[in-house]
């Protein structure tokens, strides 16, 4: 299993196609203690990302840079800017490469987490997308099977693990007690974007 340009484009397209369904839920999750814009913001970001034609990119490095640029033009929100920071980090790490393995992607994600920590001044354990990224990286490193399944499993595990934890950054920080038992909107977004597609007959299939 490896991530190449086509898989990347497909992942972006899938995320984009899901946004309409999950936008309101993410806004609502952010409205609990934040400003209620996570969903609308991500919808805008994914719309811009999906408009990028990655097939023309010579390598993954360029593709990630294009996605980062699209994000940086679409938003100035915390989540969007951290996402762009991660994409820029991916871009540097995959320059000249046409595909990366699951294990390499895990390493790249670890580096991106460091970049996001520098940019956002948050730490692991603060109940943010950093914790989701960490869990995803661990699954990717271990996984022999599908990247998508590993990513989804990581996002889900982090979401569940941190549900009872207090939030330690941003607006929700002031209300640690209120944030216990509420999903962090950024972590929830990763799960809803990465989770396996549910078929209408109730069965699951891999994305």
């Amino acid at each position, binding site marked *: 299993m490896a991530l190449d340009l086509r898989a990347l484009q497909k992942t972006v397209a899938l995320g984009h196609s899901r946004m309409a369904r999950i936008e309101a839920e993410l806004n609502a999750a952010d*409205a609990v203690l934040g400003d209620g814009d996570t969903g609308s913001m991500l919808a805008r970001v994914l719309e811009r990302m999906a408009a990028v034609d990655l097939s023309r990119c010579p390598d993954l490095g360029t593709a990630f840079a294009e996605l980062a640029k699209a994000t940086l*033009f679409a938003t*100035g*929100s*915390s989540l969007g*800017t951290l996402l762009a920071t991660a994409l820029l980090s991916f871009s540097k790490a995959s320059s000249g490469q046409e595909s990366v393995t699951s294990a390499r992607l895990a390493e790249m994600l670890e580096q991106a987490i460091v970049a996001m920590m520098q940019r956002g001044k948050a730490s692991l354990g603060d109940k943010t997308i950093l914790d989701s990224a960490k869990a995803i990286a661990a699954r990717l490193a271990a996984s022999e099977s599908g990247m998508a399944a590993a990513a989804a499993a990581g996002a889900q595990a982090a979401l569940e693990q941190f549900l009872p934890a207090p939030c330690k*950054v941003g*607006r929700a*920080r*002031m209300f640690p007690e209120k944030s216990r038992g509420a999903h962090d909107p950024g972590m929830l977004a990763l799960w809803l974007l990465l989770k396996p597609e549910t078929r209408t007959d109730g069965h699951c299939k891999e994305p």
Partner: protein
Amino acid sequence: MKKLINHPADYVDELLEGLVLANPSLRREGASGRVICRAHPGRSGKVGIVSGGGSGHLPLFTGYVGEGLLDACSIGNVFEGPNAGSCMEAIRLADHGAGVLCLYGNYGGDRMNFDMACELLAGEGIPTLTVLGTDDIASASPTESEKRRGVAGIVYAYKAAGAAAESGANLEEVARVARKAVEATRTIGVALTPCRVPTSDVPNFQIGNDEIEMGMGIHGEPGIWRAKLGKADAVVEEMWERLLADRPIGAGSRVSVLVNGLGATPLEELFILYRRTHQILSGQGITVVQPLVGNYVTSMEMGGASLSVHLLDPELEELLLASARCPFWKI
């Protein structure tokens, strides 16, 4: 929550278009039109001052671009930081060869985007310094004051830094003045009714028909308590207790005060709040210089008000009274 707008996605671009059409002293710039700068740039050698942030707070931020105040602003979507590209563009436009002070409120998205822009521009040889507005005492305890958000009190930092830059101070000096103005300023707000981000179908928070929330942030960030709305004087008294507990101010001091409306609160009510404010401060032997009463930093149609106090010393008082002119504030 009705709005006199067109397509929600066009909200920011259309309002910026109207803003510059109505104000020939402003110019709209940037690859995606998300920068507002002076139509007549400051003189060469003047330190530039840039601010920025999300839309929805007019006159903040773009309305403070003008002589003796800001040189340029980068502006984001409603309640969202300005993107890094527009921050770079604003800084470049504000640079007159003496470097640029980035002076904006302490919000995650804003900080990340300005930081990215400053790092990238360091490579281009534009020196920048950053000072963050952190006046909202309800947003973090005094021991974590660097985590506090910036709200209405930032206009005092604009005024001080703007006057210093206009008078020829260098970048370090302008940044020192801005930091000093921020440190001399404290704000607390109350919210009565929510607003709605144009792209959203629901208000940014729920509140009972007879309720008030003390300490709520300008984006609807939760405050200190919520209770039945009582008399305005009692609200003002508690706000001043909190402000003066956070930053004791002795008898004989001189301060400026900003009674700021969040958007839907009538001027009449702001003057009722100022009346009690004036009584409280003069009762403690504190002199109010150049009080400001009006909508200086809003959240669209949000109802409520904030009180800011800006403790003066001779330097800050001179900077406050120095002449300045932007579309929304003329001294």
